[in-house]
Every structure is written in structure tokens, then in C-alpha cells.
């Protein structure tokens, strides 16, 4: 069991669905996890598994009117965010929970200067005079390692590189000194050389402020570098959660195992790149049993009939697979 010490965010059985003309898309279908102070939890999975929707649900910014949170609880320091009114949520966003989006090219409004946009964020959460707000803004830029902050304040987004824009987005995100930061694939759109710098920057900010970070990504390399714990998501549900090392060394869900196996290694001779056959099931037409059944190497009849519950498989490590049942035949 997870101890209650230092828990900043607890998500219980979150369900968020999208109501479209083709049916109900169960993007987030019973997701639960815990975030602790100073800890980074990675949320991994392939495109379309629901990771971004999970992130958006936490701040209640699902695309309207199609998206709706249907069930569950999101407990931020004990308070349920889903029970709050919209004006209460506005006080939470930016100030207590913040988010970095994926594409720096579109995250910033092209018609306003960088300075305007940072000041706007600061102005929401600090009641200072104009001059000290401007000083704070420059300090915020300095903290994300943006050089010559006074000039940059007057610049427009299109005048900056992608990496720099993403730093500005980072500065905006931590302007309100939040307790939780959700980073939705922040480095996917950046050059590889810049990615490492950016990740190091995030780590530094986290160390300084004891932020709890939810890091959404599909890249296991980044997970290894950044995350203390990992939650693997598939077809709207979390299939395995555990400490990074343990999960990498001994994955306890066939999907995690297959993902690990498909990461190409530099050493050794590879005749053919391993990949996982098949496609995830469509989110508006889900099977009753385990959703990975059709692609699983170890599938059994029971898998197709009943969805496996989440079972503990190690220290702070759990997975949802029938093979982990104590009475099951040895693997």
C-alpha cells in the first residue's frame, strides 16, 4: 500500500469520455495513481491511449462540448478538484496545478509579446505593482536560462526558437509556484540536442521547489532519465505502475514487456526490429475483457472474458494481468 506521506495528488478511478458522432470514446476509463511531493511520475503509452486526456482532465480543460468527466476523484492536497465550481478551478489553475503543452510553436499567442504573456500569468497570482511584476517576469526568464531577459520581454514568439519558446512556456507554468506540474510531451517537438537541456532544466526547477511532476511521454529513454515511478497506459486504462528501475528490469504486464522489447538496442546484431503486432482496440468499441488480449503473447480464455484487476506484484509495484494472480501457474 502507498503511504500517505507527502501525497500531493491522488487520482481515483478517473473516467473522462468524449461524446462524438461515432459513439462514446472512453478516452480515460478508470485511471488511478498517486503523486508525491518532489517525485516525478511518468505516464507512458502509445498515441491515442488517453495520456493527454488524463492530463487535461486533471485541470478540467477537456475539449468542450464533446469531452466530459464522468466519474472519479482528483484529490489535490485532499480537495476534490472535480467537485469545484469553475471559478474555484480558475484559482487552482496556474497557482496550484500547472501544465506544459506539447508544441511550443502553438502554445504562445502570436500577437502578444513574450513579456505580455508572462506578465499575464504572473498578474493572475501575485498582487504586485507593475514594476515589481516586470522584475518578477525577468527573474522568471532568467530561471529558465533565457539570456538577455529585458530584450526578450519585448520580443514576439515568432522571433524565438522552439527551444526558447518552450522555456518561456515553462516559465509561465511555474510562475504561480504550483504544487503539481503536468508536462505533456514537452520535448517531443524539440531538437534532440535541446531535449536534454530542457529535461535538465525541469529537473532543476523540481529540485528547487519540491514540485510533484506528472510527465506524459511515449519515450522510454526520457522515462529512464526523468521519472522515479512509471505508470503504463493502454486503451484508456493503466496496466502497470511501479518504480522505474523495477519496471524496466522486470515488467509484469505483457504490454510493458513488449514495449521494452521493442526498444532497439545499439549492441548486438538485430535481424528484424521487434514490434507489437496489431492495433489497440478503438476507444469507442472496447472489448469486455483485457484490452491487450488480441496482441498478447500469453493470452488465455479468461483474459478475453474478464478484465483483470490491478494486483500488487512487488514493492510499490502493481499490474493488471491474470498472470500475476497468486494461484496462477508459474510463468
Amino acid at each position, binding site marked *: 500500500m502507498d503511504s500517505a506521506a507527502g501525497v500531493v495528488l491522488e487520482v481515483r478511478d478517473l473516467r473522462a469520455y468524449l*461524446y462524438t458522432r*461515432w*459513439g462514446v470514446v472512453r478516452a480515460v476509463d478508470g485511471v488511478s495513481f498517486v503523486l508525491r511531493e518532489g517525485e516525478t511520475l511518468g505516464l507512458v503509452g502509445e498515441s491515442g491511449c488517453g495520456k493527454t486526456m488524463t492530463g487535461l482532465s486533471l485541470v478540467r480543460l477537456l475539449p468542450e462540448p464533446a469531452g466530459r*468527466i*464522468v*466519474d472519479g476523484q482528483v484529490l489535490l492536497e485532499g480537495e476534490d478538484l472535480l467537485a469545484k465550481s469553475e471559478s474555484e478551478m480558475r484559482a487552482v489553475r496556474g497557482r496550484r496545478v500547472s501544465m506544459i503543452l506539447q508544441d511550443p510553436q502553438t502554445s504562445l499567442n502570436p500577437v502578444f509579446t513574450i513579456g505580455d504573456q508572462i506578465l499575464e500569468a504572473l498578474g493572475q497570482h501575485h498582487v504586485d505593482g507593475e514594476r515589481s511584476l516586470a522584475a518578477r517576469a525577468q527573474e522568471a526568464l532568467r530561471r529558465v536560462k533565457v539570456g538577455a531577459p529585458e530584450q526578450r520581454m519585448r520580443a514576439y514568439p515568432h522571433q524565438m526558437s522552439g527551444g526558447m519558446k518552450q522555456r518561456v512556456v515553462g516559465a509561465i507554468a511555474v510562475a504561480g509556484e504550483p504544487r503539481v506540474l503536468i508536462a505533456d510531451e514537452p520535448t517531443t517537438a524539440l531538437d534532440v540536442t535541446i531535449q536534454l537541456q530542457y529535461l535538465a532544466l525541469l529537473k532543476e526547477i523540481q529540485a528547487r521547489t519540491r514540485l510533484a511532476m506528472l510527465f506524459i511521454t511515449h519515450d522510454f529513454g526520457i522515462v529512464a532519465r526523468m521519472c522515479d515511478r512509471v505508470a503504463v497506459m493502454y486503451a484508456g486504462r493503466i496496466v502497470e505502475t511501479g518504480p522505474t528501475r523495477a519496471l524496466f528490469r522486470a515488467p509484469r504486464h505483457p504490454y510493458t514487456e513488449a514495449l521494452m522489447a521493442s526498444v532497439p538496442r545499439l549492441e548486438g546484431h538485430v535481424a528484424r526490429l521487434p514490434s507489437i503486432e496489431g492495433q489497440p482496440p478503438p476507444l469507442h468499441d472496447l472489448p469486455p475483457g483485457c484490452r491487450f488480449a488480441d496482441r498478447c503473447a500469453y493470452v488465455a480464455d479468461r483474459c478475453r472474458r474478464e478484465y483483470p484487476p490491478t494486483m500488487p506484484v512487488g514493492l510499490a509495484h502493481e499490474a493488471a494481468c491474470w498472470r500475476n494472480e497468486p494461484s496462477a501457474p508459474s510463468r
Partner: protein
Amino acid sequence: MARVEERIDESALGRPRGDLARLPWVSFAIIAVLVLVAVLAPLIAPHSPTEQSLPDKLLPPAWEAGGSARHLLGTDVLGRDVLSRLIYGARVSLIVAAVALLAGGGIGLIVGIVSGYLGGRTDSFLMRSVDATLTFPTILIALLLAVSLGPGLRTIAIAITVLIWARFARVVRGEVLAVKTRDFVALARVHGCSHLRIMAVHIVPNVLNTFMVLLTLHIGFVIIVEASLSFLGAGIPPPTPSWGQMVSDGRSHIASAWWLSVVPGAAIMLVVLAFNLFGDWLRDWLDPRLRQV
């Protein structure tokens, strides 16, 4: 304002709705009627559109006091039957629209393809011309043409062509820019195809969809332009009846004979509405990306 809600019963949502499923039946009907009327005019019209009958002048429509069943929509100041003139006027509208659209659309298509495909200076120059044409009240050129060349089908066709080519050119160019980056074009170059061949054989079929949608979207516009030019005296000259001209003629009698202007104008509005709705539907069905057009 997402609040926690009860589990929603999915079966209550029913089958997927789609506004694409709703065909514009009324528009189809109006367009079909229009085309039939125009084609079968000599057979349908109760009277000749030019036959004057002064004793019968200024008769109101059949449902008003003083109206007659022989002239369902009344008569004008020369005793000519409004309904018959309306029917023959449909011909004029459609013929002018067809000619002008083909000419203007054709030129626009070619300019759009050449400009988009060749790029560079050619593109710059052509697009500047397009911009200039679009931001200029080109109807003035149309009027100038009417006065210097004399009114008639040729003049009005040229005039409307001048008015619409630029709209086609701009949108087609956009499509071409998207198509030309696709691999099969590069492949054709590798195989040594000439630019002309690539444009004709590879680019044209891929922009045809968009072109069709543009044509239908502009039918209404062209009909209004023709009517406006006729109203201003720069369209098809009398005695051929044209709706715009009928509205103009009826102006001086508006107080005593409202139907002379109101009826043909209502016909214009109805027809243009039908074509516009049809065009919108076609665009949504074939190519929703064109929504900004």
C-alpha cells in the same frame, strides 16, 4: 463546467448523427425546377415573352382583385405576361451563368495551376494581379465594357469573367501548393515529365474536386451579378427578358404595380439561395477544408 456526473447510459445516445446525412432536398428541387423551366421554356410559357397587349397592361397577379387566370403573375406596362417573361428569363440567367462560369472558372483554374505549380516570380506576379482584382470594384470594368463594346452576351460574359477569375485562381493555387509537394509529382519529375505534362496529367485531376465545389458555390454569385448588371442597363439588351432588367423596369411602377419588381427579384433570391445551399452542402461533403472560402 465539468462536474462529476452520473454514469451516462450509452445506449441512449443512439446512432451517430451527422449533418452530412441531411441532403438539401429543397435546394435540389428548386434547381431541378429551374433547369427544367429554362430548357422547356417554349413549351411551358403560356404566352410569348415579347408579345405586347396594351389593353391588358398592368394586370395584377391572379390572386389579387382584378387579376386573371390567363396571366397568373400579371402583366407589365406593355401588356406582356410576367410569368412567361420570368420563364424565359430563367434561360438567360442560366446561359449567362454557364458561359461566364466556364470562361471565368477556366481562366482561374489555369492561372491557379500555373501560379501554384511554377512558383517564384510567376507566382508572385500572378497573385499580385489576383489581389488587385479582388480588392477592386471590378464591376466598374464591367460597366465600362458595356458602354464601349455595346451590351450583349459577349460583353456580359467577358465582364463576369473578369469578376470571378481571381477568386478561382486564389483557391486553386492553394490546392496546387498542397498537391505539388506530394510524392507522385516528384516521381513524375524524376521520370522526366515536362512541367506541362505534370500540370495537365497529375495536378488537374487532383484539384478537380475543389474546382467543382467552387463552380457550384459561384453560380449564385454569377446570377446576382448578371441581374445587377441588367438592372443597371449593362446586361442583355431588350427585348430578351432578363430578371434584373424586369426589376429595373418595374421600379417606376412600384406604387401601383408592385409585382413587376417584386416577383422577378424574389425568383432571383430563391434561385441563388438554392444554389448557395447546394454549394455549401457539396463543399461539406467533398472537401470540408474549404470552409473558409
